């Protein structure tokens, strides 16, 4: 949905299990929003939202013999100075998958995806407003280089 009509000044990247590649993807961005499926036990379709800085330090231990998890990759990017100063995660709660058939998204999750997309657009608009305010010279702030 976002790729078909990306917010202004944004690159939309679909990264399938990026692992360490997430560190590269974050580099060079002024701000980043990561959207991912999550399972926390909350009802399917719940949207969780938090900043990169709100990730618990224990998340760095959560990785697999198969690659770095999202949280650990974010923290590694921050440690290496490659993460944007503004970073947000939007997690969409999914229902446990059906083993009987390929079930796809539940209706609630599908609705949540639409809400998450709107949240991304509004977040980008908020960020652009903040950047414009910072850039105004008569407020005494430095222009953005």
């Amino acid at each position, binding site marked *: 949905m976002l790729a078909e009509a990306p917010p202004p000044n944004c690159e939309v990247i679909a990264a*399938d299990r990026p692992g*360490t590649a997430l560190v590269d993807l974050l580099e060079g961005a002024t701000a980043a929003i990561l959207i991912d499926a999550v399972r926390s036990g909350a009802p399917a379709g719940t949207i969780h939202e938090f900043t990169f800085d*709100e990730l618990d330090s*224990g998340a760095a231990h959560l990785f697999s013999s198969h*690659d770095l998890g999202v949280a*650990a990759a974010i923290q590694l990017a921050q440690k*290496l100075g490659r993460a944007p100063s503004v970073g947000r995660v939007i*997690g969409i709660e999914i229902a446990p998958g059906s083993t009987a058939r390929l079930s796809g998204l539940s209706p609630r999750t599908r609705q949540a995806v639409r809400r998450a997309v709107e949240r991304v657009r509004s977040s980008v608009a908020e960020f652009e407003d903040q950047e414009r305010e910072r850039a105004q010279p008569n407020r005494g702030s430095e222009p953005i280089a």
Partner: protein
Amino acid sequence: MTSRRAKSRTIQVNYLTRVEGEAAVRIRLHDGELVDLRLQIFEPPRFFESFLRGRDGREAPDLTARICGICPVAYQMSTVHAFERLYGITIDPAVRELRRFYLCGEWIESHALHIHMLAAPDFLGCDSIVTLADKNRQAVERGLRIKKAGNAIVAALGGRSVHPVGACIGGFTRAPRREQLADLREQLLRVRDDAVECVQWVSHFDLPAVTRDIEFVSLRNRDEYPMNEGRIGSSKGIDAEPGNFDDCFEEHQAPYSNALHCKVKGRGPYFLGPLARVNLNFARMGPDVTSVARETGIPWPNSNPYTSIVARALEVLYAIDEALRVIDAYQPPAAPAASFEVRSGVGRAITEAPRGSLYHAFETDQRGLIRSARIVPPTAQNQAQIEADLRELVPGLVQRSQAEATHLCEMAIRNYDPCISCSTHFLKLEIERH
């Protein structure tokens, strides 16, 4: 992921449909003496053997590739080679080279991940790669560059680096143009120096000095470092065709584990993986790599499982050199894949996955539908050897705290880079003292 927000909650990001297991070790002591030791590692390939039955063999490479998220290429390679033996297919020499190139990419990314994210933090007293970056940012940056180069190779042939699709029975769904491979050349040349530094870095770790009586097993090949072809060889005299896997090794069900334990027939456990390959095929790495190996001061061959991390780093260097060789010599094949007719029969093959020899055997009916499948991954074959290593550790564990004992067991298990889900602390250790 977990959050520090005011209301406590846990967010678990779990994108893999299979449940990756943990490793569990149960040690029973009586008056400080070992009575029993049991290791359990979850083994998902067994479920794949069941649901492959009845499927068209041509689907098998894409299905078996999903057994593992870090070594899908090796699973594809063992599968396609087994079916090519079954159907009597001869692959184009250029396809043969591309397959070595493909597996080089997987070795590079898998070994780089293991060295920098799992093993190095252990040896350097860090609890994760994130804290390792505090201690040695340069090493972490280097590891990420190396892994990225490996991912790029896999993506060039498989369409993407995660669950690549591209290998098929007879060859590849498409063969790259020379220019596409040449694009990777500069990236590989840049990380070659990184790979040499990585060997030097890990060889200076405080590696425990142990010597074990171990039977190392890997493919051996007269002309080259083994990847997709060769004979089964061992440090105690095995020399056999891959099709004779069952003449050399036997599996038995350990009553306490859902895994089958493997042993050399008439002998005992055996050791697969980079250290086995380096030990058995040292000269085949070529003088540019063997000179770096000798400079470490570590004797090759050796029987110290803790030098596995150095063997992995040497294989990263070898794989970069081999990938560059393939790129420089590459001429696209006349056709990306050989055509074939399905028939009934049995095909068997072994490929050297990052973690060691991976054995596949398939039986098909006249329509090419799979009647039976057998997949024996290196982690399963290594379980008996890992148990043997843990038994050797026990005298040193008796006086340790639970945390110290667990950490020592984890380090011993990590020499084998087992294909399991692991946090920095993955092991459930239970010690019963009577």
